[in-house]
């Protein structure tokens, strides 16, 4: 792999700067505002609460109602706020990924509502939303096996890169592989890809992505621990 610098000055395996704020929404049980490069995502968790209509509830576990939505101001041109095919598909797969982390069997007959809203989109929004949702669930105090951390890797302009932005994703030979893992167990919870790529390069991309996921996991852990400072003044 060539050590060429990317158009925004990053090295091939660098992530965009990530900033995490927890507990931003007082109406939700848990919330997280995540800034990932130019992406801005708000994730909130409500529940567990009673499910309506009742026949959709499951007597052996809680149902995860994950919603991925893009605000109409998130793209250069106005996006219709009506959830399209893409929104629904991402909601389904991300909800399944989170269900592998949250101990749903402890809350039978209930629903856990997880809403993620993208304020500004700049490629890699599904991984940003999933990372934020996992943090919001941990902030809400839901019992979890681990955290879900995710990063997208891929290829742009014949170079294997991590965490593509919109300009790189629009390249003619672009490959985008979104991967989410249950950390620290390192179990794959979500894997999606588009573009044409051979198996050798896929393995290489996946290897880089796992390294990126470890970095994201460390940031998530740091943000959660920093929310509750043990030392220092009791502030009024």
């Amino acid at each position, binding site marked *: 792999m060539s050590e060429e610098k990317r158009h925004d000055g990053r090295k091939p395996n660098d992530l965009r700067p990530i900033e995490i704020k927890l507990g931003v929404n007082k109406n939700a*049980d*848990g919330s997280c505002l995540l800034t990932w490069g130019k992406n801005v995502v708000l994730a909130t968790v409500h*529940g*567990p*609460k*009673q499910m309506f209509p009742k026949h959709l509830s499951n007597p052996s576990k809680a149902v995860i109602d994950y919603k991925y939505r893009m605000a109409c101001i998130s793209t250069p041109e106005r996006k219709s706020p009506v959830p399209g095919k893409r929104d629904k598909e991402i909601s389904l797969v991300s909800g399944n990924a989170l269900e592998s*982390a949250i*101990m749903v069997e*402890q*809350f039978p*007959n*209930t629903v856990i509502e997880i809403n993620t809203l993208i304020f500004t989109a700049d490629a890699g929004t599904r991984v940003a939303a999933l990372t934020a949702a996992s943090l919001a669930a*941990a*902030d*809400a*105090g*839901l*019992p*979890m*096996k*681990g*955290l879900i951390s995710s990063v997208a890797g891929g290829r742009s302009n014949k170079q294997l890169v991590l965490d593509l932005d919109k300009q790189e994703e629009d390249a003619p030979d672009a490959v985008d592989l979104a991967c989410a893992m*249950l*950390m*620290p*167990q390192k179990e794959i919870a979500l894997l999606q890809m588009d573009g044409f790529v051979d198996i050798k390069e896929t393995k290489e991309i996946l290897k880089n992505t796992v390294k990126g996921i470890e970095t994201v996991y460390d940031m*998530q*852990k740091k943000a*959660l*621990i920093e929310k*509750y*400072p*043990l*030392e*220092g003044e*009791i*502030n*009024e």
Partner: protein
Amino acid sequence: MKKIVVPGDFLTDERKKLGSNVYLKENKVYSSVLGILSESNDYVSVIPLNGPYVPQIGDAVIGIIKLEMSNGYIIDINMALDCFFPKSLLKKSLQVGDVIFARIKEISDFIDLENINLLPKGRIIDVPSVKIPRIIGKNDSMLNILKKNTASNVVVGKNGWIWYFSKSPLVLEKAIDLIVKNSQKSNLTNFIDDYLKKQIKRK
């Protein structure tokens, strides 16, 4: 030394009695919530810093009458499932919106209550149920400080609802808010005592 753990953190691989909010996988113990680690020679558990109310038999809870039916009442106790209480076990009738103090008798598909007492006019604050032990304190120390300094009547439900009737309600609310926000820090009881004395004197 206190330590904060996140979900999935490895705690120990020794054979220990498992407390709450931990899980066992391949003979290793992991944390399942964001909380403070509490570990001794033969016991390991995690005290959560936030979370939903999980009912247990014998919990004293505060409830609000949500709905009146022909044979009983549906009572909201700040959790996903509502409880039902039959009219035949009550001496006098209740109204929608009444606040009650009761004990959980049985947990099955429904939650059964017993010892229902009607609380008089007052206010309710909603706090995370995991902070309730901190608001009560060791041997009711924190609760006594709150009651004594603000000259108020306080009833604490395990479900995270606190009923109170006070002459200085704003000071009491602010003090409870301080306890909730700083529950992970030590030496909180003395701080709240000083804070309340200062606030009451200023008035």
